[in-house]
Each structure stands twice: as C-alpha cells, then as structure tokens.
C-alpha cells in the first residue's frame, strides 16, 4: 500500500509555469485531476503511473486518462465562445 503523500514534497521545474513546484501541486493542477503532463514530467523520478493508479479513485483515474489540453489558439477560440455565451446569458 502506497501512502498518498509519499512524494508530495518532491520538486520539479514545471514547463508550463516556468518555476519549481511540488508533486503535490501536479496532483491537483486540473482541479480534481492531476496535471495532464504529470506522468511525462515525473516518470524519470519514480513510478508515478503505478502510484497514481493505486492512490486515485477509479473515477478520477478514468477522468484523468480522458482529459484534454488543447493548444493555445484552440483554447482562445473555445474561451471566446464560452465568454460570449456567458454574456448572452447575463443579458437575458
């Protein structure tokens, strides 16, 4: 049985934010889900995949496997549409 906080205080340079962060942050970067890059970033340090499989609830693990992070232009277009829809909803 792996302890949930076993690696929480380990640090790595985050390529998205540009500074050092703990593994604990990576585990919750996407709200309930770990960061989409967590395995890629950490697999050289310890068996992160098996750690996550063992410590995450099955539903969280499944959602983690399915999460998507689009490129910047896609993100912009998507967020524009959402913001416009929100404005329309506010007006009504």
């Amino acid at each position, binding site marked *: 049985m792996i302890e949930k906080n076993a690696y929480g205080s380990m*640090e*790595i*340079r*985050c*390529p*998205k*934010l*540009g*500074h*050092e*962060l703990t593994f604990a*942050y990576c585990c*919750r*970067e*996407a*709200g*309930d889900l*770990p*960061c*989409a*890059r*967590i*395995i*890629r*970033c950490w*697999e*050289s*340090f310890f068996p992160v*995949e098996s750690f996550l499989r063992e410590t995450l609830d099955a539903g969280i*693990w499944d959602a*983690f*496997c*399915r*999460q*998507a*992070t*689009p*490129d*910047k*232009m*896609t*993100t*912009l*277009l*998507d*967020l*524009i*549409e*959402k*913001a*416009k829809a*929100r*404005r329309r909803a506010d007006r009504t």
Partner: protein
Amino acid sequence: MKTMKVLLEDHEIPRQWYNIQADLPTPLRPPLHPATGKPVGPEDLAPIFPMNLIEQEVSSERWIDIPEEVLEKYLIWRPTPLCRARNFEKLLDAPVKIYYKMEGNSPAGSHKPNTAIPQAYYNKVAGVKHLSTETGAGQWGSALSMACQMFGLGCRVFMVKVSYEQKPYRRMMMNVWGAECIPSPSNLTEAGRNVLAEHPDSPGSLGIAISEAIEDAVSHPNAKYSLGSVLNHVMLHQTIIGLEAQKQMEKIGVYPDVVMGCAGGGSNFAGISLPYVRDKIHGKEVKIVGAEPTSCPTLTRGPFAYDFGDLAKMTPLLPMYTLGHDYVPAPIHAGGLRYHGMAPIVSHLVKENLVEARAYHQLDTFEAGVMWARSEGFIPAPETDHVIAAVVDEARRAKEEGKEKVILFNWSGHGMVDLASYDAYLTGKLIPYELPDEEIARALRAIEGFPKP
C-alpha cells in the same frame, strides 16, 4: 583590442517589421474553427483582439511600418548589442565564431517587450482602455505591464496563484509598473468563482488563468486580451531582433553559417530567424536551427499533419508538427504532453525544410547555461539555455568536421529571477528523459487516416 560588441546608433534601428508570410513558398494554412470546421476569420478573434492587430495577424504585406510611437519606446533599450562570445568560444575550443543578440537587457529582462509594446500601442490607438492577460512565472505578465504603463492603458494580469505566491519578484515588477496582478483563481470572474466554489484552496493553473483573462476582456467595454506567443503578429513584432542582427553583421562584413534560437513558444526563435529565412528562400546558404526540449519532441519526432488539439476531437484541426492527438507518454494512455503544436509559422518552416529542429535534454541545457555563466558572466534564462546547448552541439560538430563556422543566436533573456531552477540543477534534482521510438510510432498511428497539409 578585439571587438566584443557591434552596436547600432539609434537612427539605425529598423523602421519596419518583416512579415515572412509574403515570402513563404507555400502559404500558411489557417487554423480551423472547432464549431464550423472552416478557417478562422478575423471576426472569430475580434472579441479579444483589436482589428489593427488582427489585420497584422492575417497580413501578407512583406514589410510593415513600425509606428514612431513604438520606435520611441524601443529606443529605451534597442538596438540591442550584437555580442561576440569570445570567452565561450575559448572554452569550447572549436573552430567557431559565436555572435549573440543580447535581448536580456530590456527593462523586463527578455525579448517579450518587443511585442508587448506594439500590442499595447495598437490597442491604445484602437480605443482600448484596458488589457488582460495570464501569466505563470511572470515573464510575459511583467513585459505587458510595462508596455501598458508606457501607453497609459490599464493592465490586469491573472497570475497562477501558486506562481503568485512562490515567484514574487515578477509580480512585484508588475505592481511597480502599475498593473493589477491578481492571483488566479479569483472572485473577479465567473470562471474563477466556479473554481473557488468547488476548490476554495485551489492553487490555480494556467488553464484557469487564461479563462479568467479572456472572460475579463470579453466582459468589459474597451477591454481586450493580449498574448505573448504563438500568433503571427507576435512573431512579426519579434523580427526586429533578426533585422538588427543583419545590419550589425553587415557592419563587420560577416554572414552567419548557422542561426539559432530556442523554439519553446516560437517567438524568440522567429525573432532572430525569420529575416534569415527570407535570405534562405532567396538562395542564401544558411542553416537555421530551432532548439527544443526532449520532453516536447514535436518538431523533431512528429510529422506535419492536420490533427485535433485534444483527445475528445472537439478542437480545430490545425496543421502542426504533431505526435497525434492521443499521444501520451509510455506506458499508458494518460496524461503527458498535450501542448503538442508549435507556433504555426515555425511548424510551416520546418515542413518547408527551411528550418531544422533539434532537441536537447534538460540536463544538457542547464550544463550549457552554467558553462555560459562561468565564461561570459551573464546567467541565462532556463529557456535560453536550450539554444546555448544547441550552440555547444554545433561547435562540437564543427570541430568534428574540421569546418569553420559563424554561429548567430538569440540570447533571449536573463535568469536572475529563475535562480531556483539552477539550484534544482546544481543539487541534482533534474533527470534526463527521451521518448522511445516505439512509443512515438504507437502515438502516430492515431493520425494515419487524417488529411495531410
């Protein structure tokens, strides 16, 4: 006395930016809108960018005049010196002459103000009163804060909360320049409030911060959003770097054999290289190299193809160097690299064989950065270390080939606010990693049936 720097007088600063789209052998393909599948048009971007910048985004004019008001601000630190790295050359003991554009001497410490300033200016003349953006460690946020102050615009920077708390110096820079730097998630936007309702102690993420910045821009009259990488107009503004370098090298009668830059988000690489890509298109013999980390091997290992940006296939089909939308690291189909698209212009140039990409291990980049600091003095930003590793590699190749080479690269920023990264390297916390070939082959099977650009 040997010359170490080549300078330009203020009046010699280039008066126009160079737009590579005018000279591309085949035109750049526009991104496709996820909702319609049609090319993204100006109207799609109008809610967050002013029309004068959108016009630049889609322009095919070869030269675009730099407004006098922008030149006046550039002149605060530009033209930047073209420096000769004689001490580094001595250390490498290879038949190379190494020149670099010192972009770390801008007020914000990097090349980012080259686009932050014109973006603030164009928004100002379009009647915009307020700009929003997101930032991680704060390099872009601080550059835009300074630019907005210069043109009397309000600036709101949504800084990822964990960065806000752990990286205070650039946040302080933003405050000094009069910007509002807000830890994200915040209560200022619905996107932020939704996150906080569910996770009151959320440390934030770049995804949340960009959501907040765009919502802020769309929700307020006379407000727009600003982005410091990826887009065509950003690459355009950065060409001031390469254009100056061309004038400076001409002054000393030297032309580079190799031009190099770090290809992270594309802007500093584009800045130094695009004017030389033009030369290459017109027959000049020059090798142009983009350096990227091995943890992001899109340019070096993936083919150029239309691909979705996500697993759910809800996003636009973009022409890009890709490892496939379901690319995930070994050994499972989860997590991993999802920012697998390079700036469209840079992807396009690699496809056209005008630019070559090389990947370097994280450890090699820091090793090169430390070598640089111990010979040339300046401590580079960790991103800049990537191109320095490429320079080391090129020098070794020259030595092996017994061939003299002139190398020019973009020293894109200093690392004085990134010393914790060096500490991590020097204390042995960083470990190299390279994606296995079989894993790449597996990932690419996902895009086998897709249209090829």
